[in-house]
């Protein structure tokens, strides 16, 4: 097997006396689609924020391609759970934001932004400000902004939680298409087990606080997947039983 792109070793993080992440170690292969599921409040968001060093970690190491993670060097995009579209920029300017920060060539920016806007269906709204958009459109803006930088590592924290179902299905399929086309590595956090089974190559099940890895389940169902397929249902039930949240 090839060298993993992301290596996490003995990651530990606590807030005051509250231990949130307890000695977590795992690898992510290049081009892999990894879904992380776990009970509510198990620190999944802390997990991603520690991974990107937005939080200082207490101990352990995180490397990308064998080097310490560096947000300036590595091309990472992170889609947060909260709405993170910038109110003072138009839809188009929001989508350009990451590319501008990275000083990408103007022509490439133009081309990528057009392309990505088309995919998420925002072309008509390019000059709108976030205040004029509905919640689900705002989330599309954020998703487009992340896709536009064509990241080597894409982190998504429940990006589709608040979306209309049909739109969610549409964007899930688009995500898969983009992922297959660009070969990017995706770490996707979700509460929705069906979503996890639908999207992932592998599912990482977390325990309650302090968070550890309960199990890593490979998911080799053929794509495109079908939710009523008995194999699909079987895997979905297996993960549900592992979490046992009710």
């Amino acid at each position, binding site marked *: 097997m090839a060298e993993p792109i992301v290596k996490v070793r003995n990651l530990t993080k606590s807030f005051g006396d509250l231990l949130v992440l307890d000695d977590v170690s795992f690898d992510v292969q290049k081009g892999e689609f990894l879904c992380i599921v776990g009970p*509510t409040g198990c620190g999944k968001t802390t997990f991603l924020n520690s991974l990107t060093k937005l939080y200082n970690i207490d101990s352990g190491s995180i490397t990308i391609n064998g080097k310490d993670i560096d947000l300036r060097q590595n091309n990472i995009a992170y889609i947060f759970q909260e709405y993170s579209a910038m109110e003072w920029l138009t839809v188009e300017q929001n989508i350009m934001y990451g590319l501008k920060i990275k000083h990408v060539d103007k022509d490439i920016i133009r081309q990528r932004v057009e392309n990505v806007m088309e995919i998420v269906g925002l072309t008509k709204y390019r000059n709108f400000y976030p205040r004029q958009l509905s919640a689900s459109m705002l989330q599309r803006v954020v998703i487009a902004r992340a896709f536009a930088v064509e990241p080597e590592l894409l982190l998504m924290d429940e990006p589709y939680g608040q979306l*209309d179902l049909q739109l969610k299905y549409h964007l899930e399929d688009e995500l898969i298409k983009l992922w297959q086309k660009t070969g990017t590595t995706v770490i996707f956090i979700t509460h*929705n087990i069906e979503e996890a089974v639908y999207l992932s190559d592998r599912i990482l099940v977390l325990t309650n606080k302090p968070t550890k890895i309960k199990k890593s389940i490979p998911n080799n169902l053929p794509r495109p997947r079908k939710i009523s397929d008995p194999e699909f249902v079987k895997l979905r039930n297996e993960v549900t039983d592992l979490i046992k949240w009710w």
Partner: protein
Amino acid sequence: MSRKAVIECKHVSKTFYTLSGDHLVVDDLNFTVYENEFVVLFGPGQCGKTTVLNLITGLELPTKGEIIVAGEKVTGPSPKRGMVYQTTNLFMWYNVMKNVEFGPSVRGISKKERRKKAQHYIDLVGLTGFEKHYPVQLSGGMQQRVGIARAYCNEPDIICMDEPFGHLDAQTRYLMEKEVERISSQEKRTVVFVTNNVEEAIYLADRIILLRNLPTSVKKEYTVDLPRPRNYVSPEFLALREEITRDMDPTL
């Protein structure tokens, strides 16, 4: 078995007059809801589902047609028709107890009696011990429980729920769906529940009414006969889910 009709929507249309012009939101809507039935109004995106609920509860009046609830024509809001909202719409300045007993209190029911009643519903939604908390101190799911208790505590003929779990995360949502099922089996009421989530619709409904996109009207109805509690991954459940998804209007 002949069933008693509780809500009758007859040729209802609604136009909004705004400075930017007139908007036809509901167009010739017809449906009936029977006593103690759990009906889900299901439709894509912003298709005017909330307007339909506002018409039923009397917050808005239809431009054409009429709505009859429990034999009376709807002409304005009334304590006989309760509502649970998407954004919880609690009175932020009252604690849980005062929120729940708001209805009985404004109708002049004695303190002792209304406290007893409110306590019953607080216990029913599983918030025992949180009576003195203010809404900001509660999580989204708990706030939604207060909203449900508040609507039930007024003992209305019908209860409307407008995407009550739209803002909750998937796990809390599953939990709340189970709760609503438990509550509505313990306290039989006529419920009109609006959602855009198919799973939720099939899990809860006795009958699903699929709505058309703007202007809103009835597209199709489905009777759900699956045994309760329902299994999200049973073949029948998944088959119905795919059928409904296929029938929906595209929103993109």
